[in-house]
Each structure stands twice: as C-alpha cells, then as structure tokens.
C-alpha cells in the first residue's frame, strides 16, 4: 500500500482547491461569482473566529469586529479619500486596536460571562455607529464607498476591481494569505500554547504561559483578520450600515463553526462550505429559511457536538464497537 | 442475618481512569459497616455509586435483594438509602428548617414529617435551637449535624456517611461518633466511610480496607483493630 505523507496530502489537496478557485470565474455566472466572493470573505471570518475558539473563548462580537473593519474602510476610503493599499492595512490595524480595547476588560471574565460581555461591548460599538452621523452616517450608514482600483483609467497597469472577476481574484489572494497565516499559527508553538489554554488553564499557567496576555493577543490577531474580512466586504458591497452587523449575522457565523467544528483547522471551512451550499439550495424556502438554520444549529449542538469534523472519528468508533460486539457475540 | 445491601464486583471509571475495581461488600441489616483507606482509595466513589451518582461499568448493586443500578439517584433516595455527602453539602443559603424539609422532600406527609423532625431533634437538640439560622453561617460541626439530620428526615433504612468527622475538633468528633452509635442503636444500618480508621473501627461491626480502588483486607472490626498491618498503615502505630 502507498504510504501517504500527511503534509503532502495537504499540499495536494490545497492545490486542487486553489486551482478550482482560480478557474472558477470561467465556470460560473456573474451572480455565482459574487456568491463565491462572499464565500471567501466568510471563510476568512469563520477561520479568524475559530482562532478565538481554540483558546475556549467564544465571543459574540466577531461580526461587530468585521463591522469595525468595514466602517474603517468606509471612513478612510470615502471621507479621507485614501487608496486601498493604505485603507486596508489601516482598517485591519484599527480593528485589531478595537479588539485590544475589548479584550482588556473581557479577559477578566470567563465562559458564559465572557460570551455575554463580548456581546454587550459589540452592541456598544454598533450603537456608536447608529448615534454618530458624522462620520458613520447613523442608521443609514456609509454609502458610495469608492471602488477599488489600481492606477487610473487609461494607464497600462490599470485594474478596475469593480469588475466582479477582478474583485474575486483580489479577495482570493487575501483569503489564501489569511489562511496561510492562520495555518502557520495553528501548527506553531504559539498556536499550541493557545490551545492548551483551552484544555487546561491552570496547567498552562504552571508551564509559564501568561493566560491573560495570550487571550488578549489571540483576540487582537483574530480581530485583525476580521477587520480584513470587513474591509473586503465594504469594498465589495460599496455601502454599509449598522444592520449589516446585527446579531442574526453573528448567529450564522456561530452556525458555521458549530456545524463544522473548531478543533481542527478544517472544521470552519467545512462549516462555511456546507452551510453556504445549504443556504443557496434552500432559497425557495424564503422566509422559512431562518427556521431551518435554527433547527440545524439545535440538531448539531444536541446530536453532534463537535461538528462535522468529528464525524469520521465517530463513525470509526461506532464501527469498532459493532465489530467488537460481533466478535464477542 | 439479612443482608440489606450488597455490592458484587463493582468497578467505577472516571472516563478511562479506573477508580475502584471489583469491590464486593456486604452490609447486614442493623450493623455499622466501615470502609477505611487513605485519600484517593475509592471510598467516596463507592458511596456515590451506591446512591446512583456514579454508574459502575462492571458489577451489580443489590438493595434488599434487588438490583438498583437502573434507578436514578433521586429514586434511590426514595427506596430508603440516604447519603450524607463528603464535605456536608448543606444548602447554605437556606435555614436549618428548610434544609430538614428538603431531607423530607419525599416524605412530606405532615404526620410523618413531624415524627421524623422529633427524631432528628432528639438526636441533635442543637439543631432545634437554630431552626431559623442559615446553614451557611453555622460551624463545621453543626453543619455536619444538619447534614446527618437532613438524611434522617427521609426515614432511611440505610445511611451512607462520607467522612463525617473530617475537619472537626476532637470534642466534636466524639459527639458525632456518639450520635452515629445512637442512630444505629435505633435500628438503622450505616455504611461509614472514614479516614480516621481508629474511630471508625471503634464504631463499626465490620470493616473493609480499600487501597487504590481494591478491597485489600476485610474482617470484623475488633479483628481489624488488632491487625498489625492496619495498625501500621492506618492507625499510625508501630
């Protein structure tokens, strides 16, 4: 039998996926392409959320952090008129900074209190957007965010990202970058240290991990990437308002991570992918759709805690058990 | 002599970790049986298994000749097994009276309740003076009395006591020991878990010594007291 090296396996798999995403624009309609772009943004979002979850800190403000990135993009690009290569890094940094402001008080709380307190802080920020017409536009938000372009019309290197296909590739590059960073973190000593916080807080303290500091750091890194997702979103849809970042959206993000699982790097990817497919397939359900997703969330939490990523192991365990029983019986 | 409770080769696991293995114990009606052994030997686990808080992966637990493994813990209380848990576990934000009422949760018919209350107060006159006091504000010894009184309120046939003298002053230990004897004298069977082996063997009729989850020695209490090994290991004598 051929012996597969795991990392080769991964490499080949990743390449296949990347090739698919590179050729995809030629295979699908413009509408589908927009969906694919949103899918990629969601992948960044879910993956950055998973980073938080590896330390055991589930938050309820990740969508708000994405919103911070989006609002920062809106303000910087529209009001300050800055080009995207200045706006995007700044949006990420601003989001990381807001994350820091969140994380400092939050790191004093744990578990459920952490979850709820993060929600309250998020709502605070959302109300800031609602309240301050300048610069956030109040309830109407920011419209007419300048489109993304490189160079100007007529120049040979001009690229207009208003074009769906161009923007799609633009997003794809950032998604791959973000995933590579997150993958490296996941496999690094730092990543393992963070995970150990989840499995045993006291033990990690005793082997010299500064738990509070680590949690704050993870929060900031995760926020940085949520900011990236938000910035891309702002450029893609061109207008944002506080309703884009409501609790409902956060619940969908949780659904992806619950369905896929967060223990492994692949969990959220499986979650976003499967739920995006379900979302598209169930368009005919129209207004019943939220109920379906609610049901999915319940079923997974009750019947398959750990998500789809744990399914193979579960099936294996079940098969083992039955075969053992057969041997015994 | 009829056997009230019988454990047959019971083993309990916490996850994959074995806490007790193949423990067999027989508790005759009307006696005090003691389980002694050092910290972590599996004494509490055994009691918790009897009252249904833990499930044995192997073996069986018979009460009055019937397996009680399928019963949930609240039903096990109902058939006449009361458990005075390790660390007393009184309801600290409830009054003494309320704690006793909780003990009688399944026996709340007012006549029976009054009778049980009288009985408890006869064993523990101190509780009677403090019916309105919050349990959390009482001393350790008083809380222990309350926990025992609460167990008596269900009018049990069998009482499981997990380290009732832990952390108490010598005088209080003596007092509690006297009351255990008294309760047994009224015809109630008791399984007493103690680290204080000397006291336990003085009270009990029969004893089992547990070590890392297994019964290593068993015998009549006075025989065990004379046993050299036990003296060395558990009674601190050389």
């Amino acid at each position, binding site marked *: 039998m051929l012996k597969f090296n795991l990392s080769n396996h991964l490499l080949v798999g990743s390449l296949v996926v990347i090739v698919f995403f590179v050729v995809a624009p030629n295979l699908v309609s413009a509408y589908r392409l927009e969906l694919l772009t949103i899918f990629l943004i969601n992948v960044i979002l879910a993956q950055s959320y998973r980073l938080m979850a590896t330390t055991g800190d589930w938050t309820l403000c990740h969508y708000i952090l994405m919103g911070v990135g989006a609002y920062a993009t809106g303000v910087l690009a529209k009001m300050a008129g800055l080009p995207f290569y200045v706006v995007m890094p700044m949006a990420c940094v601003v989001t990381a900074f807001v994350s820091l402001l969140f994380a400092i008080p939050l790191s004093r709380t744990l578990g459920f209190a952490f979850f709820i307190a993060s929600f309250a802080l998020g709502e*605070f920020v959302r109300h800031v957007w609602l309240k301050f017409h300048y610069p956030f536009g109040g309830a109407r938000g920011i419209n007419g965010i300048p489109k993304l372009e490189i160079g100007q019309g007529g120049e040979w290197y001009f690229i207009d990202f208003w074009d769906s296909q161009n923007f799609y590739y633009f997003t794809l590059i950032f998604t791959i970058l973000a995933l590579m960073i997150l993958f490296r973190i996941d496999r690094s000593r730092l990543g393992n240290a963070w995970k150990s916080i989840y499995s045993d807080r006291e033990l990690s303290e005793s082997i010299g991990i500064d738990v509070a500091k680590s949690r704050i750091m993870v929060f900031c890194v995760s926020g940085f990437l949520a900011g990236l997702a938000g910035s891309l979103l702002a450029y893609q849809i061109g207008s944002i308002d506080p309703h884009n970042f409501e609790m409902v959206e956060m619940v969908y993000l949780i659904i992806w991570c619950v369905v896929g699982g967060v223990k492994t790097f692949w969990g959220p990817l499986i979650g976003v992918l499967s739920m995006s497919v379900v979302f598209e397939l169930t368009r005919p359900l129209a207004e019943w759709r939220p109920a379906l997703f609610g049901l999915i969330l319940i079923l997974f939490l009750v019947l398959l805690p750990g998500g789809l990523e744990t399914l193979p192991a579960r099936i294996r365990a079940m098969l083992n058990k039955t075969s053992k029983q057969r041997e015994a019986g | 002599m009829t056997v009230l409770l019988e454990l047959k080769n019971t083993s309990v696991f916490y996850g994959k970790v074995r806490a007790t293995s193949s423990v067999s114990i027989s508790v005759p009606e009307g006696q005090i049986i003691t389980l002694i052994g050092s910290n972590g030997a599996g004494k509490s686990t055994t009691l918790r298994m009897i009252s249904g808080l833990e499930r044995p992966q192997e073996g069986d637990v018979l009460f009055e000749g019937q397996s009680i493994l399928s019963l949930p813990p609240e039903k096990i209380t109902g058939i006449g097994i009361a458990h005075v848990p390790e660390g007393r576990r009184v309801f600290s934000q409830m009054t003494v009276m309320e704690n006793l009422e909780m003990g009688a949760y399944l026996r709340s018919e007012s006549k029976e309740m009054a009778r049980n209350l009288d009985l408890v107060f006869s064993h523990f006159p101190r509780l009677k003076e403090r019916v309105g006091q919050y349990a959390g504000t009482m001393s350790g010894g008083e809380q222990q009395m309350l926990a025992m009184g609460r167990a008596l309120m269900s009018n049990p046939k069998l009482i499981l006591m997990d380290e009732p003298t832990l952390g108490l002053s010598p005088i209080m230990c003596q007092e509690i020991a006297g009351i255990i004897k008294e309760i047994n004298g009224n015809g109630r069977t008791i399984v007493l878990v103690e680290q204080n082996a000397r006291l336990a063997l003085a009270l009990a009729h029969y004893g089992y010594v547990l070590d890392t989850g297994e019964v290593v020695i068993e015998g009549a209490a006075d025989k065990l007291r004379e046993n050299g090994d036990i003296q060395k290991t558990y009674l601190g004598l050389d």
Partner: protein
Amino acid sequence: MGVDTIVQTFTNALVLGSIYAMVAVGLAIAFGVMQMANFAHGELFMAGSYVVFTLYTLVGIPFLIAVILAFPIVAAIGMVFERLIFRPTRGNVLAGFMATAGAGFILQVLVGQQWGVGLMRSIQTPYPGSTEILGAAISYQRLLIFPATVVMVSGLWYFLTRVKHGKALRACAQDPEAAVLQGISLNKMTSLAMLLSGGFAGVGGALMAPIIPVTPYMGHTFAVTAFIIVIVGGMASIEGAVIAAFILGFIHTIVTTMYDSVTATMVGVFFMALVLIVKPTGLMGRVKV
C-alpha cells in the same frame, strides 16, 4: 426641569424597571438552576405579546384573562426548550445558549408565518385614558405594569420560600447534587425553572403588547437588556436581577429624557462593562436564587 417632568421620568422609570424585572427574573431563575442560559428569552417575551394579540384582539377575550393565559402558554414553550435543548446539553452552558438562538429563529419564523413578517400588530389598549400626578400624565395601561410586577415577583418569592417545590428549586440552584440526594429530581426542577422563566417572560410580553410595537422581532432589544440586567445582578440572583432591573430602568429613562434612547442603551451597556470589570461576579454574585 419642572416637577411634572421629574414625576413623569420617575414613573416611566418605575414602569420600565418593572417590565425589565419581570423579564430578567425569568432569565435568572433559569440560569440559577443548572445554568440554563436562554438566548431566546426575548422570543418568549414576543410570544406573550402574540398571545394577547390573538386572544384579546382577534378572539375578543378580556385583556386581563389573555395576560393570565400568556403564563401557561409561554411556560409550555419554555418547558419544550428545556426538554429538547437544555436537558441534552446540560453541563455545557454555551451549547444550550447557542442552541436556543436557533430556537429563537424558529419561533420568529413560526410567528411571522402565522401573523405576518415585519408587520406591526396594533393592539388597542383596554384601559384608555390617563391619570395626572403633579402635572404628569401617566396612562393607565402603563401604570398597570408596576402593580402587576409587584404581584408576580411577590408570588415568586412566596413560591420559592414557602412552597415545597419552590424550596427544592432553590436547593437545586445551590447544590444540584446534594438536592438529588434528597430525592429531588433534577429534570423536574429544570423543567419547573423553565416553566417559571417562560411564564414570566410571557406575562411581561403580554402586558407590554398594547404599549410597544408587536412584531416577530420585538423580543431582541428586551432580551439584550435582560441579559445586561442579570449580568449586572449576578447571573443567578433573583434579588440581584430585580435590583439591577430598576437601576437600569432608571438609567435608561433618565438618559433617554435628557438625550436619546440610543445613548441610553450605550450607557446601559457601558454600566454593565463597568460592573464586570470592577466585580466580575455581578452586584449580588454571591447570593444565588
């Protein structure tokens, strides 16, 4: 600021605090017993409003009876949550909380499909008119809420301190394992807790139905505030929840009078963050149920 404004603000705060108390107490009971955190508590509140809409506006049953009926009807929904969600996820607070988020979606959709999505239902007040206290006009409908809350909360207090099953509920909140050893069934207690929790949310929603816009999504803001309140109050503490409800009711009303409601919400959230930072266990964090 004239006397009338002060009286007006004070009564408004009292009314708002009352309704917050009614909603938050339900959350605190459920959290106190086996840490059931109900994300869909706001949807139970909404269900209470729709009970009044259906029974009072559509069927024509007297308002007060509809309000009273909201208790068992919404309590039943609460018990379904317990059986299908909290019981299987016991021991994992977050899982129960997230799963009830799903249940909230389902309730919203069901109500929306039955009575219209996003459509505001207008419910005529059964008690038109208002009274004047020192120059401030206070409608009877609003005024009703304060005594109703006093009755409900006193009733709850009586139940928890004088009735056997109520005491058992407190015992369970303090030490579930010790409670089980007394013969108290955990499943019955969690069910009872969700019954009360749902009932309180339902009556809250029912009383508010003639006052606020009734839509499938109306519960959200109330749930947010209720969660802030129970956290400020110390999660499982009923006294804490009541005290915090009135504190937040006053903060919200005063800030709304002086500025606007968005600012008021921000101040409320800020207050909660402050409490968490200074005393992570909440105001009454030590005192359970």
